[in-house]
């Protein structure tokens, strides 16, 4: 038994090394800007989805406001760059700190709220932020900021090639995944899962649930802000509509949801499935496609929520068991539904 475990770990290590090697080589195989761009966006969403997963998937606190932190990261570094000439390498730090502090503040106020109350409270805060940014002169209202393309300059984190961006976001995504992978088995991950399953019982076992949820929210927000700064430097244009709208907030959530919440692989699978499809739809359908891809997201969210709340991971696990398990409460007769365990 022990031996089997060792060889499995070896396979795993080998597989991961090969995969990482391929990802490092990718921009040298695909030299066109477009395939590189798709992968950059994909890594970005892996990191964002994984960050959301730390709080939402592991502790079960559904935040509909993670895009607040993304916007904070993007705006802080951009404002520092434009108004004070601070390079984004430094500008990213105050953004991360601000997002982390904001998350702790929100957590202190809202973590007593259960279930959908927490979700709607965070959504309300996101909408408040959106309205404030739309009307606030300091952040240039609805116009946002265009970051001037100074030159091909590593100091200002601006390049004419996509390759440096590719490696930066690859490092971020791999780092975040590695962190969650470690966390999954470490104390923080185990505690968060315990809180998700039964918060009262977790408390009675001596877990300071508020403290661990705050920690998870802090980490989640900090990562999201980091990616926000990256995004601002990559796209060189930020405005409230693209950073603070509900659509963007939803996209962050749908990725771990489709892949499988509360798992390490979930956000990766979700991003690999959805981002290429979304990018393809955006290119082929053009302007009129915006509505269509949101329509599809709606359908995907609905179907996943009803039939397989555990996402792609859940389908995989069911298949591996050799039979497709009857999904939660699906096909249930009303009588069977009534007899089911209380939530």
């Amino acid at each position: 038994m022990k031996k089997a475990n060792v060889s499995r770990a070896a396979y795993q290590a080998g597989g991961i090394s090969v995969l990482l090697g391929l990802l490092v080589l990718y921009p040298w195989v695909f030299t066109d800007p477009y395939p590189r761009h798709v992968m950059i966006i994909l890594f970005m969403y892996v990191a964002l989805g994984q960050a959301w997963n730390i709080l939402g998937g592991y502790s079960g606190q559904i935040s509909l406001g993670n895009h607040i932190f993304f916007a904070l990261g993007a705006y802080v570094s951009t404002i520092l760059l434009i108004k004070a000439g601070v390079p984004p390498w430094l500008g990213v730090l105050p953004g991360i700190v601000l997002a982390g502090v904001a998350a702790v503040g929100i957590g202190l106020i809202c973590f007593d709220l259960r279930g959908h109350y927490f979700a709607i409270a965070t959504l309300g805060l996101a909408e408040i932020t959106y309205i404030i940014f739309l009307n606030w002169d300091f952040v240039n209202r609805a116009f946002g900021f265009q970051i001037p393309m100074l030159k091909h300059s590593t100091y200002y984190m601006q390049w004419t090639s996509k390759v440096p961006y590719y490696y930066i976001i690859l490092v971020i995504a791999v780092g975040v995944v590695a962190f969650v992978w470690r966390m999954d088995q470490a104390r923080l991950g185990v505690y968060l899962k315990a809180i998700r399953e039964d918060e009262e019982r977790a408390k009675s076992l001596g877990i300071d649930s508020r403290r661990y949820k705050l920690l998870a929210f802090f980490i989640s927000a900090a990562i999201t802000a980091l990616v926000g700064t990256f995004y601002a430097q990559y796209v060189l244009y930020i405005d409230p509509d693209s950073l603070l709208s509900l659509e963007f907030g939803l996209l962050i959530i749908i990725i771990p949801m489709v892949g499988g919440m509360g798992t390490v692989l979930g956000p990766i699978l979700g991003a690999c499935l959805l981002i290429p499809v979304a990018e393809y739809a955006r290119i082929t359908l053009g302007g009129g496609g915006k509505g269509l891809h949101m329509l599809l997201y709606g359908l995907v969210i609905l179907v996943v929520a009803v039939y397989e709340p555990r996402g792609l991971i859940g389908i995989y696990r069911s298949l591996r068991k050799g039979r497709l398990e009857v999904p939660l409460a699906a096909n249930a007769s009303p009588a069977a539904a009534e007899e089911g365990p209380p939530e």
Partner: protein
Amino acid sequence: MLSTQLLAQSLISGLLMGGIYSLVAVGLSLIFGLMNIVNFAHGDFLMLAMYATFWANVLLGWDPLVTLPFVLLVWFVAGMTTYKVIVRRVLNAPMVSQMFSTFGLGLFLRYGAYFFWSADVRKVNENLLSGVLDLGNIYVTKAELVAFGASAATTSVLFFFIKKSRLGKAIQATSQNKEAALEMGIYTDHVNALGWGIGIMCVGMAGVLLATYYPIHIYSGWTFTLISYISVALGGFGSFWGVYLGGLLIGIIESVLGTVFVPAFKMVFVYVTFILVLIYRPRGLFGKF
């Protein structure tokens, strides 16, 4: 600059709008009370009712008042169908599934409307309810007044239906204790479906009335989902008239504070109210639990 007259005007406008919020919120609260599920597609049914009114007006030349009974019927069936096809499957699922099932449905409806009818803002033509009344320097449209009255009347009818009729008592019983209701021979599955039918019918009614004077847009539904949710939280889950008053209060808060401070920030005041309620009085103003 800020005259008493302007304040009075904003108070009345807010109150009249609050009537619509109340009607939508009462439907949401009924569904929530029965099965502890928040319908995040609630406002999107309202948006669709507004579009139904618009298209019936443009294509068939129907007055909104003619469209009303048809919408009520169709929306009742749509509510029951939503329950039977979607909600019933997540009754015992984790909260995340319950939340995202209706959330996904709402997105689907919203962007379905976008896909077919684009994001243009539409208005219904002159209709039976067009016209402005002068109440001593305070102006209200006939449509607003009728919508407010109809909302109050519908809510009252619904209240007596729930309190007095046999079916209404079954709804009460199911809200209070599902297992006990089942023991008493109440087929709670049908009661739930009825709750969805009535809840969505209220939304359909609000949508038609709103369409007579309010711009029609695909995103207006989502705002109404949030506002009705907040009205329910403010009024208190489980309190029928509390929710009604919650809707009126939200209408007034939005309108008066928007007038006194910055109109662009009126939704900010609503969200802030909501968060303050959650912190200081989580059971709402009139809530029982």
